[in-house]
């Protein structure tokens, strides 16, 4: 039964010692311990957060870089394409131009040749007519010196006329 009956002396001692111990430890032990633990945990949390932010920043930077690079690449492709197109256009234009002028030259030449040809033919025809007249004249002068020859000639003409 003595087990279950608390001694007043021990109650008093326990109360005094425990409360004093609590006050002592609260001031000299628990307060620095709790605040240091909290500060350390806070600094760890902060460090982790900073690291996370830096990582995000890095990712953002990297994606920005990639975007820039992609844009630059697109720009380059576009410029190349445009240049190629321009070159092609220029080439085509030059070709058509050249063809056109060549055609014109040929056409002009052909026209000139035709004109020259006509002129030459005309000349030749005139010349031939002249020669014919001269030959005819000479022939006339020689052949038609007597009547017989004149007669023969007239007959020949008539023959020709008949056959024609």
């Amino acid at each position, binding site marked *: 039964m003595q087990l279950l009956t608390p001694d007043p002396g021990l109650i008093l001692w326990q109360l005094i010692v425990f409360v004093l111990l609590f006050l002592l*430890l609260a001031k000299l032990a628990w307060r620095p311990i709790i605040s240091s633990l909290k500060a350390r945990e806070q600094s760890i949390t902060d460090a982790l957060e900073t690291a996370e932010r830096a990582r995000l920043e890095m990712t953002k930077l990297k994606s920005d870089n990639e975007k820039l690079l992609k844009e630059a690449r697109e720009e380059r492709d576009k410029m190349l394409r445009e240049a190629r197109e321009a070159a092609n256009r220029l080439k085509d234009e030059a070709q058509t131009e050249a063809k056109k002028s060549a055609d014109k030259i040929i056409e002009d030449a052909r026209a000139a040749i035709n004109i020259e040809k006509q002129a030459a033919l005309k000349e030749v025809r005139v010349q031939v007519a002249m020669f014919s007249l001269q030959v005819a004249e000479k022939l006339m002068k020689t052949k038609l010196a007597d009547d017989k020859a004149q007669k023969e000639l007239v007959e020949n003409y008539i023959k020709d006329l008949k056959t024609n």
Partner: protein
Amino acid sequence: MKAFLSRISRFFMVLALLCVFIGGTSIRSLASEQEESKEELNLSEFIIHHVLDDHVWHFTNHLTIYLPVIVYSSERGLDIFSSRNFYDEYHNVINYDGYKLDHSHIYLADSGKAVLDLSITKNVAMLLITAVIMALIFISVGNAYKRNPGKAPKGLQSFFEPVIVFVRDEVVRPNIGPHYEKFLPYMLTLFFFILIGNLLGLLPGAGNLTGNIAVTGVLAVLTFLITNFKGNKDYWAHILWTPGVPLPLRPIILLVEVIGIFTRPISLMVRLFVAITAGHIVLLSLFCLTFIFSSIWVGFASSIIVLFINLIELMVAGIQAYVFTLFSSLYIGMAIAEHEHDHH
């Protein structure tokens, strides 16, 4: 949960290793004590005597510390003297200076009236030793934190930091809630006082401090006082006029709740007292089998069993410190909880 269990088990393993040898020596010292006194023994009295408080600190028959007696009575006033005066050279109890010692209680010899006994008994000495050890340990740990703030803990500091963090994160914070920090110093003092008191109680020749109902009672009353003084409007409303209960039942619930206020600290007090005292009684009983059977072989067998019971006791020492702190946190947490709804 897993991490939590592994933390607990690691903690207890360290404690177990620390105290395995101590357990061994405790058995041996008891054995020598017993063998020396060959008289007929009343074993149950012997066992109960060992778990009770005493005015002398008896290690062996050759090593007994006579503790100071401090008594006060209205008739005699304050008196301080050594408890050696109560014993003659044959270790028989005698009266001294008008005081009578009977079963560890001191009376006035002529009138038989009990005096107020403020003696430094075995348990008071244990209490002072526990307090000094705690102060030394934790002030040094606290200084270590002040000395190198923000650095990794080392030495004693790194041994206690996980335990302190365990008490804060697994016991106090989840049960008290957002305002836990105000109660953390009390809870840490409570936890380590019970833990160190329990462990010191397992030492050979040590007093049964945390297995004394006066000690556990004071701790329970402190928790009771904090709970009811810090209890908010919701807490008292819940007790006095429980919401969500039909009106005719409310007086009955009131009775139950009022009883509940008192059963909580009583359960705290009895749980710790019984767990520690019962452990000591089991150890002593197993050990006393040797003397009942007067056989060395029984002694050998019971020593092995006692060794394992000692390991269990180490576990109980931690568990009881944990449970007392846990329930104290729970009661305070319930008293200061802010309810957002009307009933639950």
